[in-house]
C-alpha cells in the first residue's frame, strides 16, 4: 500500500484547549516577575532556594516550599549549548546560546538565553545579568527578561559543579 496505489495518509489535526494552572505556590514568583523582581522559595526542610519554585515543592524533601527569597539579578553560567536547529514553536533567531544560569542566592540553575556577545565567547563560569524587555511587554513570565548578557566581572570557578544543575 502506498500513495501511488491510491491509499492516502489521513491528516487529522487535533485541537484541545486547556486551562493551565501555575498553582498557588507559584503566585509570589509570578507577581515578582510582574514587578521586575526575581523571587524564589526556600525549602523549610533543607533550606535550599529554588528559582523558579518548580511546582512549589522541594523535590528532594517532598515539602511545600516556604519563604520567598529575592535572588539575582546577576548569576553565573553553569553550562550551556549553542542551538543551531530550528523547531516548531521556537521564538528566537538562530543560532543562540541557551545557558543554565545559577542566580546569586539561588541553589538551582535555570535556563535562559545569552545575547550581546559572540556565542564562541560564552563559557562555564561567566557572570551574567538580565536584560528586561520594555515594561509594556511584561506578563507573569520569565519571558519578561529578553536575555542575559555578560557583566564583565571575573569568571567564577564552578569546579566540579560544572554540568550539575
Amino acid at each position: 500500500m502506498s500513495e501511488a496505489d491510491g491509499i492516502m495518509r489521513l491528516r487529522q489535526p487535533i485541537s484541545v484547549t486547556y486551562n493551565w494552572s501555575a498553582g498557588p505556590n507559584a503566585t509570589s514568583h509570578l507577581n515578582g516577575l510582574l514587578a521586575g523582581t526575581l523571587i524564589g522559595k526556600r525549602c523549610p526542610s533543607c533550606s535550599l532556594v529554588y528559582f523558579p519554585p518548580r511546582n512549589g515543592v522541594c523535590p528532594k524533601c517532598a515539602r511545600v516550599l516556604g519563604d520567598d527569597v529575592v535572588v539575582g539579578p546577576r548569576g553565573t553560567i553553569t553550562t550551556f549549548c549553542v542551538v543551531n536547529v530550528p523547531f516548531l514553536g521556537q521564538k528566537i533567531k538562530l543560532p543562540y546560546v541557551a545557558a543554565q544560569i545559577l542566580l546569586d542566592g539561588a541553589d538551582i540553575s535555570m535556563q535562559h538565553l545569552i545575547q550581546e556577545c559572540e556565542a564562541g565567547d560564552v563559557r562555564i563560569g561567566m557572570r551574567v545579568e538580565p536584560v528586561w524587555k520594555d515594561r509594556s511587554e511584561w506578563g507573569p513570565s520569565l519571558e519578561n527578561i529578553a536575555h542575559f548578557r555578560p557583566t564583565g566581572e571575573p569568571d567564577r570557578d564552578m569546579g566540579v559543579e560544572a554540568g550539575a544543575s
Partner: protein
Amino acid sequence: MARRDVAIVATAQRPNQVGSTLTSVELILPVINEVIEKLGIERQKIGFWCHGSCDYMSGQPFSFVAAVDAIGAWPPIIESHVEGDGALALYEAWVKIQTGECDVALVFSNGKTTSGPIDRILNLQADPYMVTPLWPGFDSLSALQARACLDSNVLTEADMAEVAARSYRDALNNPIAYAKENVTAEQLLARPYVTAPLRAHDCGVPVDGANAVVLAAGDAARGLAERPAWIRGIDHRIDTQRLGARSMTESFSTAVAAHKAGVGDDRIDVAELHAPYTHQEILLRRAMNLGEGTHINPSGGALVSNPAMAAGLARFAEAAESVFSGSADRVLAHCTSGPMLQQNLVCVMEGE
C-alpha cells in the same frame, strides 16, 4: 494464583472539587504525605512507587514526570508509571510485591478533569482512523450503549434513575463526594436529557481529585494496619473496542475478570464499582452477579465524583476503608477504562 498475601493498609483521598487551580504536583503531594503519616513509617520503607495518570488530560507530554517531585525521590527510588487509572498502577504494584522484590508499595493517581474538555479528550482513545475524526464524544458513545440496553430491555430509564438517586443520597454521607442531593428517581426522571437517553444524573460528574493507597505483604501488612484489606483475587481483562463487534448490553471482560478474581465464591458486602454512567453500573452488576445483599457504591461512586484516572483507585480506597472500619468483611473494587466499559479490573478484598 497469588503466592503472597497482600493487603491495602492505608488510603488517602483529597476532597473532590471542580476548577482546581493546583498543579498536579500540588494535588498529589498532600495525599502522599497524608498516607505516609497515617502509617507512621519512614519514606524509605516504601519499596516501590507507582503512579497512574494521563498526559492528554494535562495537555502536556511527560506530565507524569513532574509527579516524581511529589514523592521525595531522593535517594533514588524504584518507581513506575502507567498511562491510565491509578487502579492499574495498583495492579502493577501488586505484581511487583508478588515477585518478592518489595514488601511495601505506595500507589497514587491524579485526575484533573476540569482543566480541559474531558469529553473530547477521552474521545482520543477511539480508533484514530475511523472513529476519532467523527468526534462522537465520550458521553455520546456511552449514550449509544445505554440506548442499546434500553431497546433490548436489559434495563429501563427508571432503573438508571434509581442508580443515580441512590448514589446522590449515599454521597450525602461522604465528605469528599462532590455532587450530593436528597432526591428520588421520580424527581430525576422529570429532568431533561443531556445526550439522550442520558440525563445529567446518568453521567459521572467530572472533578479534580487525587488519592494514594499503600499495599503491604504478609507480616508487614499486619504491622501497619489493625484490619488490613487482604487482596484475595485481582484480574483485569479487555474487550474489543470496535463498536460493531462487541455486545453493548453486557460486559464480557468484566465477567471474565470477576470470575478470575473469585467474586462468585462468596457473598460480597460492599462493591465499589467504577461506573461513570448509570446504565454501566447495571451492566457491571449483571456481569458479576451482584445481588440484593451487596451494597453498591456506599461512597456515591464515580457518578457523584469522577476524577478520571483517579476514580478507579478511589474505589479501592473506599472499599478498603469499609474493611478497615469493620463495616464490611468481603468487598469488591472495580475500575474501568476506555469507551463503553472496554477494559475492566476487578479485585476482591477481605478482612481477617
